[in-house]
């Protein structure tokens, strides 16, 4: 273990641009990774940051209108489910969104579900469901519904679809609380903008919001930690001193493929979730791998076994039911395995020591 830490410290101290990827870890692990990346002038990116990056950029350009899962399940009378992403992220999502019992809810409408371009699935009992699909692609359907909600004139050849879209638009206007549910990883930024614009139109006369599915692997928790640490989300570089964010330039996989990065710290240590390593990640670019699972690594890679957060040790991670960071107790009792935070702090201390020597 100690020699592995030493080798890791040597490898990283010599790196010109180390990338911290994977980051399937708890908030403490993320904080330690951020501290080390800052020390070394590296880059941080989470393996499931494609959605959070898009959402972050849309937000800082024009804002956001999030609702917590709790508010949606207790108060929304109309849920617009966009695409397959949300139910792929959480197969019980609709049960959660339409519970049997709820807090006092605005308006007198019965609850209704509008599904845009998603595979047929079980819909909640007693909830009227309307499906918008036909031959149109998802972005078109979102745009059509947005136009209908805003009462903008348009023509669509598919008369049956047009009728449905107009009726759905009317329903949105007459709802007491409309919530659009999506996974930002599945949608392109213009679609996110269209949804946001629709919400911003609706709130002039009623209540509306968005429910964005959280990223796997504590992607949202790691992202939040990055923001309170350096003011910026995933895909941030500390190479220039002041942190700089760029969702294209500082994507881990691109930096590894292009050869700009010359070392990788790969972290995969969360119970029940697996971060798939970037293509060729472990080939050619020296890596320090912190994993709670068996790892196929290159000969020169440094592999350090760590405990799985939420299994081997208590873990603070993003929990969708509270729409925030909560604590999950270790499921398998006390473990002697070090945490990601322990290991990264130790490596940081070794680098300091070597630097001072």
């Amino acid at each position, binding site marked *: 273990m100690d020699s592995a830490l030493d080798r890791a410290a040597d490898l990283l101290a010599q790196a010109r641009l180390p990338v911290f990827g994977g980051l399937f870890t708890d*908030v*403490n692990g993320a*904080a330690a990774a951020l501290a080390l990346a800052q020390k070394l002038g590296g880059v941080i990116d989470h393996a499931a940051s494609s959605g959070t990056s898009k959402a*972050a950029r849309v*937000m*800082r*350009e*024009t*804002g*956001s*209108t*999030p*609702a*917590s*899962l*709790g*508010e949606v*399940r*207790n*108060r929304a009378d109309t849920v617009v489910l966009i695409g397959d992403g949300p139910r792929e992220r959480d197969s019980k999502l609709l049960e*959660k969104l339409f*519970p049997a*019992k*709820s*807090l*006092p809810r*605005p*308006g007198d409408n019965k609850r209704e579900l509008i599904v845009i371009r998603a595979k047929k699935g079980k819909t909640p009992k007693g909830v009227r469901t309307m499906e918008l699909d036909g031959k149109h692609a998802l972005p078109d359907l979102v745009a059509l519904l947005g136009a209908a909600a805003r009462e903008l004139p348009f023509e669509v050849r598919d008369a049956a679809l047009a009728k449905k879209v107009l009726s759905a638009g009317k329903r949105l206007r007459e709802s*007491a*609380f409309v919530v659009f549910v999506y996974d930002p990883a599945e949608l392109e930024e213009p679609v996110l903008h269209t949804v946001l614009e629709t919400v911003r139109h609706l*709130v002039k006369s*009623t*209540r509306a*919001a968005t429910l964005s599915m959280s990223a796997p692997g504590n992607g949202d928790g790691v992202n*939040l*930690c990055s*923001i*309170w*640490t*350096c*003011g*910026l*989300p995933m895909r941030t570089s500390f190479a220039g001193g*002041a*942190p700089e*964010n760029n969702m294209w330039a500082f994507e881990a996989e691109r930096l590894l493929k292009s050869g700009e990065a010359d070392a990788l710290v790969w972290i995969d240590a969360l119970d029940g979730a697996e971060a798939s390593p970037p293509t060729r990640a472990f080939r050619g670019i020296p890596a320090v791998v912190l994993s709670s699972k068996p790892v196929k690594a290159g000969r020169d890679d440094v592999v350090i076994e760590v405990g799985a957060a939420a299994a081997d040790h*208590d873990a*603070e991670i993003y*929990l969708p*039911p*509270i*729409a*925030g*960071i*909560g*604590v*999950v*107790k270790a499921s398998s009792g006390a473990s002697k395995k070090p945490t990601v*935070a322990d290991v990264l702090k130790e490596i940081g201390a070794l680098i300091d020591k070597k630097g001072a020597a």
Partner: protein
Amino acid sequence: MLVQLKGGRVIDPANNRDAVGDVYVENGRIVEKPAGRKPDEVHDVSGKIVMAGAIDVHSHIAGTNVTLGRQLMPELPLIAAAEGQPILPSTAAWGAYATGLRYAEMGYTTVIEPAMIPTHAIQAHKEMASIPVIDVAGLVVLGNDDYTLNLLRKGKAKSDELKDYVAWTLAHSKALGLKVINAGGSEAFKFNARTFDLDEEVPEYGVTSRGIVEAMQKVVADLGVPHPPHVHTNNLGIAGNVETAVATLEATQGHPIHLAHIQFYGYGNEGDKGFSSGAPALMEAINKHKNATVDVGQVLFGQTVTISGDILRQFDGRRAANPKKWVINQAEGNGTGVVPYNYKRKSFVNALQWAIGLEIFLLADDLWRVLFSTDHPNGALFTRYPEIFHLLMDRDERARWFDSLPEASRQVSGLAGISRELTLSELAIITRAAPAKVLGMTDRGHLAPGAVADVAVYTDQKNKTKMFAAADLVFKSGNVVVRKGTVVDVTWGHCFHVDPGFDSQINKRVCSFYDTYYGADPSWFGVTETVSDHPDRFATIRCAS
């Protein structure tokens, strides 16, 4: 180790001290001059001003809402720096780490985060634990949550259960006190109300804003929590709202209350533009209600971002967003609104807001009840406090600013007629002694033996902006952490909280509530010692009962 701060002018209003003398420090505390012992370390501070470390009673430095603000507005420090505001042009400049350093450099040693969300208390504590040097505490927000409202449902007030619930929430979130933000207003927003007054009823629950605040005052008093309910009242920022503030004060019936960022309620509706200073009327009421304390929420011109659990107000305020982007976050309890804002010197309204805040300070009979704040970042970034100290202490500086305001604002403002200049002792009251007293943190805000050795040393000079922007020397718990305005030792402070007792039955009830309505287990958001890896992170402030 015995440390002597030798020969400075010691300003310690809590002990009626303003005289040249020495201050002794040992084992992290202020001590009497020990007879017959030579100090191990002497700091010659002759010609300097020596005060207790400053305490900020209301500054949004951590938690979901602040981080939502950082997400919306990462460029805030860059814009502010470009305008000449004293902040580094880096997104990290309003991150947790920089927050601790900058506060310490100004001589602040304790800061209160005033809006922890119960279900997100872990994030707030995680962030606070990443803020170095200073001590911190959080106030937890209730009053728009369905559990509370259900207990206060018209005619069915179950006060014992409310008492247990408040105590449980304070303990579960490791909070120092209770915050109430637009009581009932955020809940009404969920039912599509867009305004909410003191005596309006919350839909479905029937209780009024006044009823919620009264109930919370009673509960907090019964629990013996030292800090009274910290209340952000209704109608923030609206012309004519001084009536609401006065009515809220009348409604307290003499029970203790702390009204936050009162400047935002100091507005009359007179004159051609329907907006005028309500400061004289407001201060008449505050001067009269001796059990009320306030912090001011002073504004300064320039770019900032407003972050608030008053979602109803922020929703309305979104139209004034500058830059044009905003967040409305609809969640359990209050939710959040984040609206960037740039206070303009040339704006009639902004200029009056600036003047009203200063009037409030300067018209106070009793500065022990009128505490310093900008409601950071809502009125101004905390890094700008020294500019406000300057304005309060120097009427020429005030006149210089005043003369640059629009004529229409100058004509209706009474500020020019006020010649008062705060003394160093008075400044120490509003930034040290009074906050400590109001928070029940008896071991700070003063320099009597036994107090924690949080000490700030400044070079006395006419330019108070310069004087207070960079302390010569700051001790935190007896350690030198700042020299010549720069942090020289990154230490880690404590987090203070109360721990009132409650009937354990409340646990079951709260668990059942969260399970039924949220599919969640309250243990997920319970704050424990392990939220920080610094040893002895938490310290308890005792409740009276």
